[in-house]
């Protein structure tokens, strides 16, 4: 399949990328790893007259961890996320989730920025970022702003990001917590039938905070505050688990597609959510 013709831009800094975006408006789009965008362009579902390749912009790369704050450049690949020992120590849930994204070749190219900014409900990072309560840094012609992952997603492929803006970094406070990213998929490389990210902290033998977020079970990632509340103060006993899963299922709205009918997805989601909670609790 051949994409529509386009002009290729490869700026060496962010200012250069922003100025191409400003000049061409709707006709321009940035490309990170390209493993979502290029397939869309081949299918002619995306028409991009001006393609702006971000690979030469050094400011968009790298992982820093200072004073418990983790900052990850948008162009950091999943392969780099997996192989960064400091990140694996500070936020092991990212390591666990990244290993479940696509396949090795795609992980060498796929970036965290592309994954969170694309707004594809099937992407794993958005739900994970909501679970971690991460913030996204957006840079545009009017300057820099920060948007919470929990406020970023509006609908499938629709986000808070304005057309002239580039998502440059994600950041979050690393919290020592029990963690799990559980994902059911039909085959390697597929998007989730259901996936769930859970972080649990405990004091004594009681849960002192729980964060439960889900992937590909609505047209946006879903953070279930009700599921977190159902776990809070409990010892993750059977009743609490049942209440949390029920609460999480109340918050999602899956649609029928080639991964199955709604009833099946609700069933899979229930199992995935309970496995994620149980595993996070066992590690808390």
């Amino acid at each position, binding site marked *: *399949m*051949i*994409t*529509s*013709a*386009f*002009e*290729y831009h*490869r700026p060496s800094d962010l200012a250069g990328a922003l100025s191409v975006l400003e000049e061409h408006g709707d006709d321009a789009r940035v*490309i990170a790893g*390209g*493993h979502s965008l*290029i*397939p869309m362009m*081949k299918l002619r579902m995306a028409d991009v007259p001006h*393609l702006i*390749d971000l*690979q030469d912009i050094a400011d968009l790369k790298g992982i820093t961890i200072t004073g418990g704050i983790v900052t990850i450049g948008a162009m950091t690949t999943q*392969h780099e996320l997996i192989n960064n020992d400091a990140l694996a120590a500070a936020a092991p849930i990212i390591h666990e989730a990244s290993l479940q994204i*696509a*396949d*090795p*070749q*795609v992980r*060498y*190219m796929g970036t965290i920025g592309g994954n969170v900014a694309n707004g594809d409900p099937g992407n794993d990072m958005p739900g994970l970022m909501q679970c971690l309560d991460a913030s996204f840094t957006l840079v545009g012609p009017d300057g820099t702003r920060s948007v919470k992952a929990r406020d970023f997603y509006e609908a499938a492929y629709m986000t808070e990001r304005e057309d002239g803006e580039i998502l440059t970094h994600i950041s979050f406070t690393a919290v020592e917590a029990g963690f799990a990213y559980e994902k059911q998929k039909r085959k*390697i*490389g597929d998007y989730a039938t259901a996936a769930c990210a859970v972080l649990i902290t405990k004091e004594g033998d009681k849960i002192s905070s729980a964060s439960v977020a889900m992937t590909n079970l609505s047209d946006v990632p879903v953070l279930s505050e009700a599921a977190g509340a159902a776990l809070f103060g409990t010892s993750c006993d059977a009743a609490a688990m049942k209440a949390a899963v029920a609460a999480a299922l109340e918050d999602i709205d899956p649609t029928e597609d080639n991964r199955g009918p709604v009833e099946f997805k609700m069933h899979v989601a229930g199992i995935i959510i309970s496995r994620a909670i149980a595993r996070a609790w066992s590690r808390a």
Partner: protein
Amino acid sequence: MTNQIVKMTVNGEKKEILAEPRELLIYVLREKLGLTGPHVGCETSHCGACTVEIDGKSVKSCTMFAVQAEGAEITTIEGLGTPDKLHVLQENFKEHHGLQCGYCTPGMITRAHRLLQENPNPTEEEVRFGIAGNICRCTGYQNIVKSILSAAAELNAAKEAAQ
């Protein structure tokens, strides 16, 4: 849209080609550089038959525009071994029946090559996880895994002997 000059190093040789920005790397390799080792399988980044190595990464060259590879170092299966002097991986695929129709083999071996660079002594499970982006419809993978493990052992033995 206008053609662009793309400079890249392919199998150790500097190359300059003229390509439209929308030309995929796999077609430039095959049709402009005559490197028909990397295959077009699904052309939708699922099967891995088009896998090449770019700057130390295994990449599905059907999901990359050639212009993105400007300045890159690329290795295809042609850069690993020749019919007269097979690469250790090629020898072992031959020895252990790691192929039947052979269509996935260049991508499989190129990927395995990268995997062994990063993890010279993988377990069977690590090999299976490491080649999960390459699909084979003939072998059932059993003999591919065997070939890669055997190549790893041979490479490690050679390294030890050299020390």
